[in-house]
């Protein structure tokens, strides 16, 4: 009796200390993988020690069978669960800890194109939309002021104020002057506006290198 109690106390204490070590490693380790290996190994051994300590106290056959079943199941499933969680973590694109010295499972090249492709595709789409936005969306606002009610005062302002450097956009003001062909001119106005934008865009780069 006394020997069984001593053995029970010893194994229970060892198991509890190992479980506490698993929890401490869970808190203090820096990476998901390190936390996972700490919890998987230490908690498995700690639970095994707890089960052995309980088996010294519960000497019934059914109790020992249940304890053995629990131990077998834990020792079978702890590596499985750790593996599944590690695979999910890798597939999620989680990087290793910066202090890791070996990345044996080189998943980063396989996941880097995915991660790089998605940002690149998103970036290309965004750049396409951005590049198309100044080319397609800016000309429409230019001809829209050329509509008769709003562009007439613009023409007067342009005529009255030649100081404006946007004299290249003057093709727009003559558009409202003619009634029926205004549609044609308004249709031409975007092209002219685009040409003016292109001219400004092409005239800007020479001026830019001159400044430095």
């Amino acid at each position, binding site marked *: 009796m006394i020997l069984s109690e001593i053995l029970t106390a010893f194994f229970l204490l060892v198991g509890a200390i190992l479980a506490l070590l698993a929890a401490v490693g869970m808190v203090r380790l820096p990476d998901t993988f390190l936390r996972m290996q700490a919890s998987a190994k230490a908690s498995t051994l700690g639970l095994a020690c707890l089960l052995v300590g309980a088996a010294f106290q519960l000497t019934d056959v059914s109790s020992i069978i249940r304890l053995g079943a*629990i131990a077998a199941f834990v020792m079978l499933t702890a590596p499985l669960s750790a593996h599944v969680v590690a695979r999910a973590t890798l597939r999620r694109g989680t990087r290793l800890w910066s202090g890791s010295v070996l990345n044996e499972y080189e998943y980063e090249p396989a996941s880097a194109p995915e991660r790089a492709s998605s940002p690149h595709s998103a970036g290309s789409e965004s750049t396409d939309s951005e590049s198309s936005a100044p080319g397609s969306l800016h000309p429409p606002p230019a001809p829209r002021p050329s509509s008769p009610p709003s562009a007439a005062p613009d023409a007067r302002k342009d005529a009255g104020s030649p100081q404006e450097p946007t004299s290249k956009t003057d093709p727009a003001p003559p558009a409202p002057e003619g009634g029926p062909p205004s549609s044609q001119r308004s249709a031409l106005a975007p092209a002219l506006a685009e040409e003016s934008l292109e001219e400004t865009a092409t005239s800007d780069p020479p001026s830019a290198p001159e400044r430095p």
Partner: protein
Amino acid sequence: MLNVVMKIVLVLLGVALLLSFSRLIRGPKLQDRIVAVDLIAVLTVGVIVAAAAGTGQQFLLDAASVIVLVGFLGTVAYSWYVEKESQQ
């Protein structure tokens, strides 16, 4: 003697549960929380087994085996869903 050892063991396991709960709360990512839940399930089984050894109640072991099963299935299912989410 066994009563004192049982108190010490339960205190140690309680501290371990608190530490893993802190990781569950402030885990920076989802997989850290999954690992914390897995460790919490194993620690709960350890508490139940220790209580069964201390009190001699052998019927607590059924609850322990059920928690082991549910903890493993929960971990696998949770990480499976996380993996499916990451593939999309």
